[in-house]
């Protein structure tokens, strides 16, 4: 199985980040929407497995399937673009501006949210027979998760907020490592293996992933979770997004860039 030298894959990282900034609005939105939807389905699937087998590890082992699928199909998650797009700016690629990066992040955020929300509504219909029956066990579980990870943090005040933020940081540290590791291999099998491990880790450890949460919490709200939209936004989504940004950029993008790109000499005859 071929493995790329670091100097090869870091330039690929920068190229990938650059190409996302140059992507048209339509493509960016469509790809983000699909990524959000597929990840939400994978989360619904993993929680179903966990509840029905009573074994959280099994759910975590199977969850990466969805992530791998959306990566191979070329769809974009907010967590991924957080890590990749700033590299194009740091590498001084012409035409790349702060405005361009923010535009990309905003579009991807809303695309992901719309995709995850679509799946949340669809799953809620399935779990409640079109809102005519009481939520089943899986749906109840989602409601309690939503409660624990919003009101639960709030109960701890500032310490709760710190915990939430750190969980967000660790989450994208893992997820972005998976994305970058997938670039190491030139074969699909290699990419799958490289992504599996970090994604499984984040899901099992209960780290906060902004897009998974875009499914979990709206679902919880629809299925009668005991928390408000305000709780979700302030005590989960917003700190998670910031944590994801810091984790992906600080621990994956910038570290790899500074050690593998900056060491290369700038002079390059031919």
């Amino acid at each position, binding site marked *: 199985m*071929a*493995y*790329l*030298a670091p*100097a*090869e*894959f870091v*330039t*690929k990282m920068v*190229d990938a980040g*650059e*190409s996302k*900034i*140059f*992507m*048209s*609005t*339509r*493509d960016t939105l469509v790809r983000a929407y699909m990524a959000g939807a597929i990840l939400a389905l994978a989360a619904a699937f993993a929680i179903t497995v966990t509840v029905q087998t009573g074994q959280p590890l099994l759910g975590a082992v199977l969850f990466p399937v969805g992530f791998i699928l959306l990566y191979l199909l070329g769809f974009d998650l907010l967590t991924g673009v957080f890590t990749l797009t700033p590299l194009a700016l740091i590498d*001084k*690629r*012409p*035409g*790349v*501006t702060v405005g*361009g990066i923010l535009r990309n992040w905003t579009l991807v955020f809303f695309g992901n949210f719309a995709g995850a929300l679509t799946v949340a509504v669809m799953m809620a219909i399935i779990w409640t027979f079109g809102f005519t029956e009481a939520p089943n066990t899986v749906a109840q579980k989602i409601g309690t998760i939503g409660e624990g990870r919003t009101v639960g943090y709030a109960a701890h005040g500032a310490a709760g907020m710190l915990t939430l933020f750190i969980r967000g940081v660790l989450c994208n540290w893992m997820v972005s490592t998976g994305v970058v590791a997938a670039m190491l291999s*030139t074969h699909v099998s290699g990419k799958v293996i490289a992504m599996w491990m970090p994604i499984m880790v984040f899901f099992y450890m209960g780290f906060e992933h902004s897009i998974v949460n875009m499914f979990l919490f709206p679902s919880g709200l629809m299925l009668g979770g005991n928390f408000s939209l305000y709780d979700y936004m302030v005590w989960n989504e917003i700190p998670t997004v910031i944590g994801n940004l810091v984790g992906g950029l600080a621990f994956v993008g910038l570290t790899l860039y500074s050690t593998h790109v900056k060491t*290369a*000499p*700038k*002079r*390059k*005859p*031919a």
Partner: protein
Amino acid sequence: MTSLQLALTIGQHSDKGRKEANQDFHGALLPEESLRGSKGIAVALADGISSSEVGHLAAQFAVHSFLDDYYCTSEAWSVKTSALKTLAATNAWLYSQTQQGQGRFDKDRGHVCTFSGIVFKSTTAHLFHIGDGRITLLRGGNAEPLTQEHRVVVSGDKSYLSRAFGIHPQLDIDYRTVALEAGDVFVIATDGVHEYVEPKLVLEALAEHGDKLDAAAAAITAAALERGSTDNLTVQLVRVDGLPSGEIGELQQQLAELPLPSLLEAGATFDGYRIERELHASSRSHVYLASDAATDEKVVIKIPSVDLGQDAGHLEAFLMEEWIARRISHPHVLKPGGQNRKKQFLYVTTEYIEGCTLTQWMRDHPQPDLETVRNLIDQIARGLQAFHRLEMLHQDLRPDNILIDAAGTVKLIDFGSVSVAGVAEAIAPAERGTMLGTPQYTAPEYFLWEEGTTRSDQFSLGVIAYQLLCGRLPYGAEVAKCKSAAEQKRLKYASLLQTRGDVPVWVDGAIKKAVHPNPEWRYEAISEFLHDLRHPNRSFLSDRPPPLIERNPLVFWKLLSLILFALVVVLLATHPIAGA
């Protein structure tokens, strides 16, 4: 009989016969040992059509370019691939000459010629044939014609060429291989000879002159003339004296598929070179500075990246690069480097230039003065024109692909995306878009998956001129986001004058024209752009918008038609038709 090397004896003769000028052209090339093993020995004959004043030039170009270009192709290519690519490029050039000259209206006056060539490599003869020449094989006293004449007979004495070089943009050439046997004689003759001399006479001439094949060839043409041939007379004779033994033939074939080298490190020795240091690495290739262990000459070695090595299409493009570099000899284009020796691995060598890329230069000189920029653009343009003259498009012109040495001389490097007219694209345009990864300099038409033209290279040149002056891009990041012609129409050019007040209006106007989203609106030729960068063009000085016929011809003609229609209606109404 077996010997270690393929041994041939070649004899040839050409005579203008009863015509005023000789429009035939012939040649043979016996390269040095190493090339002979990898590429073989080439023999070629072309016959320019007599109705054209430039037929002799076409014939001369066809033979010359085949013999030169064929040996420039990568050693990793098969004889068939190398020769067909070379011939396709030759045909495309002749066709473009035909289109530019009288031949555009009358093919009989264009750059048109026939071509028959053979490449002898190892134990095989590879035949390439188009037109009404003929290749005949004499083996064991029998004569076997190996080719068909591409000639259509209209009436008793009237006939014309159905296929030839320089008539069509796409080349349709016959290819076949013949396994060699010792003692074989290949006879390549133009119609002035093979229509008048039967094989028996050729065999007699060969028997009479023994090893003096030139004399035999002269005797054959003399016989044809004597029998009333009215055309130019040319014949080439190639006798196979010895064949390489079987094992060597096979070994050579194995070497044709060179292995990919692994990544190199400083200090390592690699195929006769000592690696000094790594110069550049990316997901496309690794570039090293190396010195020849024997001569100490500095060269640059480029090997495909691991990522790229998996992809046959990309490897193909990588090898094309070597061929393209050897085809062009120009002060502003990077030259191939190193000796022409046999390679054990798949890699490319080029000359070493001590300097920096234009990207770096721009960082060091954020606000260069206008004259410096014009000087750089002039040099880049001259390099580009060298590509265009050979019917090639660069397609990936960007500051990273331009080097400036200590003396300020500009060189274009990296020909990985060059398209050669006539040569089928190894990578489909739809795939190429994902490959380039530098949308900043790519002309808008490529994003619509349209074919590039020299105006697409002009766009890249214009963007570089703009960026040199102000450090930004004329359309920011917007070009790549437009996926339709309608969206491209809305692209807004940000005037240079906003950031560079010291640049004259007409220079801004010239750059604006060169980077127009619609290729139709750019300059006809790059030389016009260069001219306008130095001479104030009056049309850029006036504030008045250009007339409607220039801005939107379609609307102009529609409007005119509407007015005419209204006039007709008015006339019909005021002048009743007689009798109605």
